[in-house]
């Protein structure tokens, strides 16, 4: 009988409030209503911006390729790329000519259908709190509204490059992320459309994995909250769905036996990725067998390193079968409480992370969202990335996906610890490098 108690690896745990994290639970932010944020407008970029030295040009279809080349030379433009099918040329302008001047001149040429600036587009997420999700896009913004005191300001580009990655894929709805945790608020407006089923509850032994703590909903939201729905936050894996598995009780603790059953159940019920923002101090052969079972069934297991300034918790420490995730903050630095050890594979943002909170646990008049810290928040960022890779490349093995996540990470602490280290592993995940084609040019020739 496994009686070892697991502890949720987050700072919002009731049992183990940390000195360095003095925010009360729930935070004061609950007083803010959605329409008051961003003046009630959807969070989309305003204002026009475009590349200052480029334009897009379409020539008349009847114009031969040689004539196109001659025309480009005549205007002293350099072809950067021709976009096939729609036959549009991306041109680099000479230094002494502005975009407006070149467009005016080209618009006089009868061989040119149109010329226009190379406008800058933005990922069209209109989630109201997206601007606080520095983990996905860090522009150097404040990571919480002014009503929440003590919130830091981020450092530009200290993020997971999620918006670039979403241009490549937003995930496949057939890909399931099992969230093994305290359950999920199945009717939360920002995730209810993403819930695959009511899941399984191994604490109360029924098939209703409703969250009675809040931690599981917070974690699930980071991985897969509904994106671009004019509400709340964007999950990492826009289109992937959540399989809730409740193995932790309302106090945020759970027996290994519940976890082991939860892993087995998730694997057998179609999970592609398992998120475990939890861990225990003690190794267990049964727990290792469970994550090994998932690995053998091609299910990616992502687990938290822990928040005790200590060694990596189990099952994260089962190195072959799990990706163990440490935390970074909005400046790409590892917080002191993030557990370390050779088993740490990668790091992901885990400080001041906003996500969902169960509606029925939210005090009246407050919004069902919460900010929190912990490797619990880092883990679903990585699980979401694993789900996106699985979506776009289902033929890769679990081992290959884990390796892609490791090798594509940014070694942001290389000045101090070059290469893989015990604090960040290979580095802070970079979703763009993991998903978007890497451009190889002549300069890469060996």
């Amino acid at each position, binding site marked *: 009988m496994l009686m070892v108690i697991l502890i949720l690896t987050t700072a919002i745990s009731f049992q183990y409030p940390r000195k360095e994290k003095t925010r009360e639970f729930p935070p004061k932010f609950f007083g803010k209503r959605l329409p008051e944020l961003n003046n009630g407008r959807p969070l989309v970029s305003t204002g026009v911006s475009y590349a200052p030295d480029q334009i897009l040009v379409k020539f008349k279809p009847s114009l031969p390729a040689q004539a196109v080349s001659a025309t480009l030379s005549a205007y002293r433009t350099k072809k950067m790329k021709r976009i096939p*099918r729609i036959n549009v040329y991306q041109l680099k302008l000479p230094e002494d000519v502005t975009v407006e001047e070149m467009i005016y001149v080209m618009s006089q040429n009868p061989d040119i259908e149109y010329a226009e600036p190379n406008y800058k587009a933005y990922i069209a997420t209109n989630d109201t709190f997206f601007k606080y999700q520095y983990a996905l896009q860090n522009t150097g913004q404040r990571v919480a509204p002014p009503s929440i005191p003590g919130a830091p300001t981020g450092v530009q580009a200290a993020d997971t490059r999620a918006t670039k990655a979403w241009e490549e894929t937003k995930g496949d709805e057939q890909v399931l992320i099992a969230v093994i945790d305290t359950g999920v608020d199945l009717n939360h407006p920002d995730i209810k459309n993403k819930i695959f089923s009511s899941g399984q509850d191994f604490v109360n032994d029924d098939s209703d994995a409703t969250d009675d703590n809040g931690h599981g909903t917070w974690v699930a939201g980071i991985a897969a909250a509904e994106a671009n729905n004019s509400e709340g936050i964007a999950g990492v894996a826009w289109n992937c769905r959540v399989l809730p598995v409740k193995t932790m009780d309302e106090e945020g603790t759970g027996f290994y036996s519940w976890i082991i059953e939860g892993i087995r159940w998730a694997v057998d019920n179609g999970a592609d990725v398992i998120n475990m923002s939890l861990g225990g101090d003690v190794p267990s052969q049964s727990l290792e067998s469970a994550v090994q079972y998932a690995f053998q069934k091609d299910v990616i297991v992502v687990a938290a390193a822990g928040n005790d300034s200590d060694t990596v918790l189990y099952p994260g420490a089962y190195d072959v079968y799990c990706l163990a995730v440490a935390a970074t903050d909005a400046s790409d630095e590892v917080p002191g409480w993030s557990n370390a050890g050779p088993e740490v594979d990668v790091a992901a943002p885990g400080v001041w992370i906003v996500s969902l909170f169960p509606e029925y646990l939210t005090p009246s008049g407050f919004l069902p969202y919460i900010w929190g810290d912990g490797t619990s928040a880092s883990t679903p960022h990585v699980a979401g990335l694993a789900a996106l890779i699985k979506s776009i490349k289902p*033929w890769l093995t679990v081992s290959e996906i884990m390796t892609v996540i490791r*090798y594509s990470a940014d070694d942001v602490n290389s000045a101090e610890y070059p290469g893989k280290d015990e604090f960040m592993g*290979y580095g802070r995940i970079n979703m763009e*490098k993991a998903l978007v*084609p*890497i451009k*190889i040019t002549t300069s*890469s020739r*060996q």
Partner: protein
Amino acid sequence: MKTVRLILIPLLFLVLPTLCFAQSEKEGFVQTMTFKPGIGFEYFNREVNIFSKNEDGEWVEDEADSRLKSYFLTLSLEFGLQAGFTFTPIIGYSVSDYDSLIFRKLPFSIELDVGGINGYLIGAELKKSLISAQDFEIGAAGQIMYYAGRKQEWSVPGLNVEGSIQGRPYWLRGTIGPVIEYKGFDSVFPYLSVSYNRLWGKFTLEQEILDLTGEEEKKVTGKGAVVLSPGVIYELTGALTLKGEASVIPRKGGIDFGALVRVMLSL
């Protein structure tokens, strides 16, 4: 169907000369063979369709097209097998450039925009006069050309470990069709050919990033099947002949071009 065509066109080039020799012998012709070594330069720039294998192993067309630009320097030896019948083996060196191929099946997706890749060419031409009427001569001509690029290696930038990719391109081009030639001038012989032309290619890319490996192959087919080739053969001296030809390849949404210049020496 594509495989059948791939086999048939080379076979055609092998069988036709044999048949012609057989006919010559049967008719009891006594033929003095002529030789014309030549050196030439050719260029083409064509839009191509790209195909990738899906999860079921079937080839499906990519959303994005590409272009294949190729420059080649050739050495040829034209054999005049009998009056109006020539066979020309060709060897050469080419720089071929597949514009921006994207490989998404590898563990790390790759966009390859590496410019021209050097490689070797081998091919043959066959030309046979069929009908002469006044100053015009109508014949048939065909060409097959095979390019095998050299294997190139590039490093994969941006990752936290060392990694590389190795790529190798190929293409095969076959052309066959009638040629009408005007023989009314003394030393200048303009001609026009309208030929059926196909271009097939492939590009294999291997990825090795420490223990992470993968391989992906792209198939390529040229757009446009008909080539209009106006050209001229100019006998500079009794021993020196210059051939110039332009190729126009109409396709859906545009026109592609090619050009050829060859200098031949009569022995």
